[in-house]
C-alpha cells in the first residue's frame, strides 16, 4: 500500500455552535479523482476549503502525502483550487491570470511565458492569452481557471462546483474535457458538486456527504448497486430509487416483503431471516420495474397517474394505495393516464433498509 495523497481522520469544524463537519475519515490515493457529493449545506464545500487551507480545522488531522498540514498556510500546501466563480482577476489578461502565481514567486519572465504557453496549448487557450476575462465565454473562463491551477504543477487540484455556472450542453462538454485532462496529467483531484451525474461520470471514488458526515465512500457503481442507506440510495441515481414502506414477513416458501399498500413480493436470495416481523423499506430502481400483461407474472397492480413518452423509454407514475412508483420502461409504450397496469419487480435488484434507513440486505 502506498501512502494516500490526502488523508482526513476525524476532521471536525464548527461555525459557532453548529458543527458543520462532524468527524470525517477518508483517504484519497495519488492520481485519484474523488468527488464530494451531497445536498446543499452538507458541508462538502467547507471540507474542500479546509483541505485548501481557507478554513481552519477544529479537530482531527489533515495529512497530505504523509505530512500533517493542519496548520500549513494555504500557499505552502502545494494545492491549487478552481473556484465556483472562477475568480479570474478582471484587470489581468488571460496570460497574466494563468502566470500570476509564478509572477508572485519572481520566476523570470521568459520562463513564465514558456509555462503559460505550455498550459495554454494544453487547454486550447493559445489564441486568447491577450484577452481579458470579460471577453471570454463561460467555457473559456472555466479553462483559464483550470490553467491557473495547473501551471503550479500542484500535487492536488481542488474544484468547487466548477461547472455550476455553465449551461447544460457546455457542462457535458467540460465534463469530458476534465476527464481528458485527468487522463493526461494524472493529478490528484478532489471535486465538489451537488450534481450526482457529474459525480457518477467523472469520479474514481465518490464521497457522499450529508449533514457534515460521510454517508458512504466508494466507487460510483458500488454506490449505485450497493447503497448503504436510504439517503445514498435516493441521492445516487436518476430518476430516484423508489422507496416503499412495509414490513418483512415469512411464509413457507421463504421471506416476503409486505408493502403497506397490501401487495407482497418474495425476497429471492436475500437473507433476512433474522428480520422477520420488522418494519422495513424496500428500495427498487425505476428500471427494475416493468409493466406486464400477464397477471400471473405481476407483483402488484395500480393505476397510471402520469405518462412521459420519451421515445426510447417511457416513464410511468403508477399509484398504488398511498405509494407512487416510478417505472422506467424500455421502448415507447402507448399508455394513457387512468388506465390500470400490472407491474413486475426484478426481485434480485431489491434493496432492503431497516427503520433507521440502514441496509439490511441488497
Amino acid at each position, binding site marked *: 500500500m502506498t501512502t494516500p495523497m490526502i488523508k482526513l481522520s476525524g476532521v471536525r469544524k464548527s461555525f459557532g455552535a453548529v458543527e458543520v463537519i462532524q468527524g470525517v475519515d477518508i483517504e484519497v490515493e495519488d492520481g485519484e479523482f474523488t468527488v464530494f457529493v451531497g445536498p446543499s449545506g452538507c458541508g462538502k464545500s467547507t471540507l474542500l476549503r479546509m483541505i485548501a487551507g481557507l478554513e481552519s480545522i477544529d479537530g482531527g488531522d489533515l495529512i497530505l502525502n504523509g505530512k500533517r498540514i493542519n496548520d500549513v498556510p494555504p500557499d505552502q500546501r502545494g494545492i491549487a483550487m478552481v473556484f465556483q466563480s472562477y475568480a479570474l482577476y478582471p484587470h489581468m489578461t488571460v496570460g497574466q491570470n494563468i502566470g500570476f502565481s509564478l509572477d*508572485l514567486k519572481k520566476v523570470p519572465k521568459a520562463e513564465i511565458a514558456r509555462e503559460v504557453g505550455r498550459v495554454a496549448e494544453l487547454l486550447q487557450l493559445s489564441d486568447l492569452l491577450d484577452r481579458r476575462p470579460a471577453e471570454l465565454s463561460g467555457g473559456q473562463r472555466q479553462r483559464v481557471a483550470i490553467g491557473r491551477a495547473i501551471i503550479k504543477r500542484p500535487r492536488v487540484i481542488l474544484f468547487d462546483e466548477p461547472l455550476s455556472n455553465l449551461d447544460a450542453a457546455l457542462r457535458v462538454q467540460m465534463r469530458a474535457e476534465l476527464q481528458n485532462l485527468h487522463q493526461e496529467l494524472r493529478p490528484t483531484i478532489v471535486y465538489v458538486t451537488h450534481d450526482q451525474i457529474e459525480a457518477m461520470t467523472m469520479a474514481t471514488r465518490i464521497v457522499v456527504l450529508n449533514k457534515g458526515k460521510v454517508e458512504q465512500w466508494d466507487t460510483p457503481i458500488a454506490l449505485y448497486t450497493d447503497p448503504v442507506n436510504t439517503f445514498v440510495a435516493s441521492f445516487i441515481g436518476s430518476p430516484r430509487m423508489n422507496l416503499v414502506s412495509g414490513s418483512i414477513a415469512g411464509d413457507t416458501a421463504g421471506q416476503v416483503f409486505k408493502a403497506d399498500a397490501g401487495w407482497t413480493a418474495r425476497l429471492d436470495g436475500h437473507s433476512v431471516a433474522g428480520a422477520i416481523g420488522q418494519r422495513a423499506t424496500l428500495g427498487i430502481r425505476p428500471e427494475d420495474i416493468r409493466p406486464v400483461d400477464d397477471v400471473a407474472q405481476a407483483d402488484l397492480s395500480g393505476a397510471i397517474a402520469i405518462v412521459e413518452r420519451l421515445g426510447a423509454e417511457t416513464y410511468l407514475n403508477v399509484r398504488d394505495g398511498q405509494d407512487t412508483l416510478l417505472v422506467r420502461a424500455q421502448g415507447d409504450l402507448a399508455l394513457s393516464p387512468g388506465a390500470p397496469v400490472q407491474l413486475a419487480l426484478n426481485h434480485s435488484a431489491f434493496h432492503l433498509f431497516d427503520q433507521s434507513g440502514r441496509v439490511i440486505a441488497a
Partner: protein
Amino acid sequence: MAGVPLKRSGLYTAMAYLTLIVISIFCLLPFVWMALASVDSNAKLFLKWPDSITFDHYIKVFAEENGVRWFANSLFTVLSATILVMIISGLGGYALSRSKAWWKQPFLYAILLIRVLPSTALLVPLYKILLTANNGMGNMLRPLVGENYRSFMQIFGFIDGYLGLIVVLATGQLPLALWIMKVFFDGVPKDYEEAAILDGATLVQRIRRVLIPLALPGLAAAGLFTFMSAWGDFLLPLILLSSPELQTLPIGLFRAFLRVNEIDYGLLAALATIYLIPAVIAFSFARRFLVQTFSGGVKG
C-alpha cells in the same frame, strides 16, 4: 405608457417637452448670465448681451487678483484631502466589508449618523479643538524651526494652516467614502483574495496586485464625491483660514463680492467660472455613481 391612444400620447409628449424646456431654462439661466458676464467688457448684475467680447476678466483674475494663488490653494488642499480620503476609506471600507466583528453594525450606523450632523453645529467645538492642536503643534515646531516658524505653521498649523483644513475637509467626507467603499467591497467576491492566497500572494501583494486594481472604480467614486464636496465647501475655509496667502477660491470669490462700491461683475463672473469648471468636470464623472451611492446619503 405606450399603449395610450395615439392622440393623447402626442399630447403627453408635447407636455413632456414643454416641462423639460421650462425646467432646463430655469436651471441654465444663471449659468448663461455668468458665462456672458465673464466675457462682457461692461458686465452688469443682470442678464444682458455682452457689449463686446473680451477675455480681460480672466486675465485680470490671474494677473491682478490672487487668482493663481487661490486656485492653487484650493487645488492643493482639496486634492490632498481627496487622496487622504481615498487611502483611509479604501483601507477602512475593506475592513468593514470583510470583518465579522460584533462592532461592525454599530460602527456602520454611527457612520451614517455622523453624516447627518450639520457642520455648522460642530464648528465651534471643532474650532476649539483645532486651536488646542494648533498650539500643541506650535510649541513643538517653534524650537525646531526657529525663525521660519510662521511659514511652517502655515503648512502644518491646524488653524490658518493647510494641514488643519485638509484634515477637517477629509474627515467631513470620510463617512460617505467609507460607506461607498464598504458597499463596493461587498460586491467584490472573497474568491479573488482566496485565489490570490492560493497563488502564494502575501498581504502586501494581495493589496497591491489584486485588491487595489479591483477597487479602482470604488475609489474613483469615493474620490470624486470627496473632491466635489470639498471643492464646494465654503464654511471651513471661511472659518479656518485668515492669512491672505492661504485663501482658497470660494473665499476669494466671497471676499471680492463683499468689496462694496468697486464690484467688477465681469471679474467676479470670470472668477466664479474658473471656480465652477473643476466642479463640473468632477460632477460629470461622478454622475454615474450617484444612484449607487444613494443609500449612503449623497446629496449635493
